[in-house]
């Protein structure tokens, strides 16, 4: 019954402080890393308040895609419902309080697949 693809706004999932609890609240199950989930994200954020991230997958029967930031005060950033006929590919922009792992979760065929990447948030200011 718990699936991000259902209709209601996932209030509980957006209250969770850590990533595992957020995934549990959103889906009721855990994700396995998959090289079929591709995330396009910078290595170092140009601005922690606006970090462009996109995700795409070659998996079929995708019903939702979610973005999580492990070090943010609330881990879940966004969860997108992907109806049949919509391509499993999303671009958006997220806030990052500090250097953190960012995780993309793809729900496909009722199972969860993930990809992660560390994105560095820095004060910057040097040069060669």
């Amino acid at each position, binding site marked *: 019954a718990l699936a*991000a693809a259902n209709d209601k*706004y*996932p209030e509980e999932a*957006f209250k969770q402080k850590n990533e595992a609890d957020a995934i549990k609240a959103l889906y009721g199950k855990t994700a396995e890393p998959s090289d079929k989930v591709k995330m396009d994200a910078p290595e170092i954020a140009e601005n922690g*308040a*606006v*970090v*462009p991230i*996109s995700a795409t997958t070659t998996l079929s029967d995708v019903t939702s895609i979610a973005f999580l*930031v492990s070090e*943010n*005060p*609330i881990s*879940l*950033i*966004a*969860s*997108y*419902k*992907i*109806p049949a*006929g*919509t*391509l499993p*590919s*999303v*671009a*958006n*922009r*997220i*806030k990052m*309080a500090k250097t953190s792992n960012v995780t993309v979760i793809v729900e496909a065929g009722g199972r969860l697949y993930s990809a992660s990447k560390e994105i560095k948030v820095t004060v910057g200011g040097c040069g060669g």
Partner: protein
Amino acid sequence: MASSIRVRATSNGDTTEVQALIQHPMDSGFVKDAKGEIIPPHFIQVLTFEYDGKPVFVADWGGGVSKDPYVKFAFKGGKKGDDLKVSWVDNKGATDTTTAKIQ
């Protein structure tokens, strides 16, 4: 008043690519103002795109989405000249809606 929502929907015959840019503070509730007081949470929770009476994309958002949010996706079908309806509702119950023509 101008809509808070800007949409660009482009069909290549096969699929329609949609980009939206929305004016909204997206306050997370974790940031302090200049006086050191917490800015209360104020963010879009649900953003829906409908084509031909059916949702083609639904975003559930928290306060971790950037100010003036941007989203891009694509769906199969969608004809040039057809309408794409976009609407959002935030945590305070405010809403906005717009309709864009697919180009």
